[in-house]
């Protein structure tokens, strides 16, 4: 743990005494021929892999989103003709038509956007504050805090698919834990938590929050451990109470970790897929953008261009937290 803590330096702390590594680094020119081969191999192979399987597809998504293609045959650069049957109109340039169709005539699009936004809102308003609260309480070192931490952390270890299955016993209509406890397990008045499209998103969000808050707790605990204890001391000497100390002293110096948590919160709510897929394949009230992307490429109908356009929507949203994080992290190095 100590190594982890030394990494997460507070902004107030001076950089450690290694001197600036950037200035100590020796250029490639000063290397022997053998060393240059080593550099090329150590850097080249992983970079190639990363570019080929992450960045090439990412750019490919953007390009494909302007085409109309069912995956059979080739792509070409002629514009799609409006009145041809789609079989003759394959692999052509479609312009922004995919986006236009998604926004106008694709029935699942706006519900999916709404569900993704609700997902994000629940993470921001419930899961993250809850995780932070757990972390703050545990960090105060009350009795049994290690045991609490272990128990609250347990769901983070399980895969989301597994969480979906485990909770089905809690939500089950006839025998489930909740319906039995509240006495609604009769056949006529049982609540269908996962089947009712007006309830099931909230039921799944309880599962997602259950896991996410433990995740946020661990991240936030690491940040709290790295806060210089003298700050708390100074606040105490100045007569600040716990509440004031946290909001006016601790929280501001936690900025780096707050940004990390914000990134994790946004990205995790965009990535949300496993829970709804295992629950009901992501239909009937559980539509999410991630599910729509997937169903357009793995489903019966291959709408590559259309699925890509939905992927681009996800990409654009995710670029906001990603660039914030990169700016925060690499700002000082650029200079």
């Amino acid at each position: 743990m100590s190594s982890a803590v030394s990494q997460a330096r507070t902004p107030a702390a001076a950089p450690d005494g290694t001197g600036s590594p950037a200035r100590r680094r020796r250029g490639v020119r000063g290397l022997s021929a053998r060393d240059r081969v080593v550099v090329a191999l150590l850097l080249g192979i992983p970079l190639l892999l990363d570019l080929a399987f992450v960045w090439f597809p990412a750019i490919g998504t953007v390009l494909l989103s302007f085409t109309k293609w069912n995956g059979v045959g080739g792509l070409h650069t002629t514009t799609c003709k409006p009145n041809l049957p789609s079989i003759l109109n394959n692999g052509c340039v479609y312009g922004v038509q995919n986006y236009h169709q998604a926004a106008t005539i694709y029935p699942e699009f706006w519900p999916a956007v709404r569900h993704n936004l609700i997902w994000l809102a629940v993470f921001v308003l419930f899961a993250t504050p809850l995780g932070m609260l757990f972390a703050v309480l545990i960090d105060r070192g009350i009795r049994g805090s290690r045991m609490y931490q272990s128990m609250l952390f347990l769901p983070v270890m399980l895969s989301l698919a597994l969480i979906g299955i485990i909770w089905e016993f809690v939500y089950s209509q006839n025998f489930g834990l909740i319906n039995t406890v509240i006495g609604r397990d009769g056949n006529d008045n049982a609540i269908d938590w996962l089947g009712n499209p007006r309830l099931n998103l909230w039921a799944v969000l309880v599962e997602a929050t259950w896991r996410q808050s433990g995740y946020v707790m661990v991240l936030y605990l690491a940040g709290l451990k790295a806060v210089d204890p003298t700050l708390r001391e100074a606040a105490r000497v100045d007569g600040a109470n716990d509440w004031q100390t946290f909001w006016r002293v601790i929280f501001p110096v936690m900025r780096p970790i707050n940004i990390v948590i914000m990134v994790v919160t946004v990205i995790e709510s965009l990535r949300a897929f496993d829970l709804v897929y295992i629950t009901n394949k992501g239909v009937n009230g559980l539509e999410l953008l991630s599910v729509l992307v997937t169903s357009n490429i793995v489903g019966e109908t291959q709408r590559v261009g259309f699925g890509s356009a939905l992927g681009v929507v996800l990409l654009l949203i995710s670029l906001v937290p990603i660039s914030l994080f990169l700016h925060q992290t690499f700002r000082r190095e650029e200079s």
Partner: protein
Amino acid sequence: MSTDTLARRPASPAAAAGTDRGRRPRRWGQITSQVFLICASVLWVLPILFALYVAVRPYSDTRTHGYVSLPHHLTFDNFRQAWTQSDLPRFFWNSVLITVPAVVIVLALASGVAFVLTRVDVKVNVALLIVFTAGNLLPQQVIITPLFRMYLKIPLPSFLSGSGLMYNSLFGLVVINVAFQLGFCVFVLSNYMKSIPGEMYEAALVDGAGLWTRFWRLTLPLCRPALAALATLLTTWIYNDFFWAVTLMSSGDKRPVTSALANLQGEFVSNQNLIAAAAMIVAVPTLVVYVLLQKQFIAGLSLGSGKG
């Protein structure tokens, strides 16, 4: 959160250590915190214990009395049945064949990149670091459509893939897990390597150590704690992966165990107790990591949230 003001008094060493804040017990705050955390902890383990309870009861029993009822008799028969009736052992073996190579390869490649980016001036160090880091932050669904097409196009020799393609092959799953997790590991390891004092490298240079020696004999041994923490984290993540396996594999016998759960649900649809047992079996490896390596796992997460 207690909000009573503190009397001014000189700081005690105990307070500075961050335990036992002050000598005057702030009783109500303590009690509220305790009650809140006890309730939360019970709620947090309850669903898991409940599923376990369903798994150790015979189907006939829950069929007549429901899940919430006193046990008439307990049995491990569901576990035995789930293990023998479905292909669970084979799916587990698939998970091993994907997870172990992926973790080893990711750590090997990422430590090489991190070493070059922190110790050799290749002019675009920060840019490359950003390329790797950002790659891991993209939602998987952003890249899946072209990736799926690529997997259907890229041929593989038959000893790597029965279908002759990257699609539906264990090799293909290893590749995407490696490529996708590279970014996170490069980020963490380069942060870690930056904290190694430059004097050590200068001493090695004076001794005439080449670049490879400085990497292999000096840097990697020093990074052992970070590598152990990352290995724990990656093993859990890759074992738990669901998305890549569901999209880049047909629902056949090549799937790793986490995504095979989706098939099992259909297979055991008439016997929920078997599903509960199968789910518990699938949870075993991560629970073992949780019991034995929880510290490592958390250290890995904390390293990732550290600053660059």
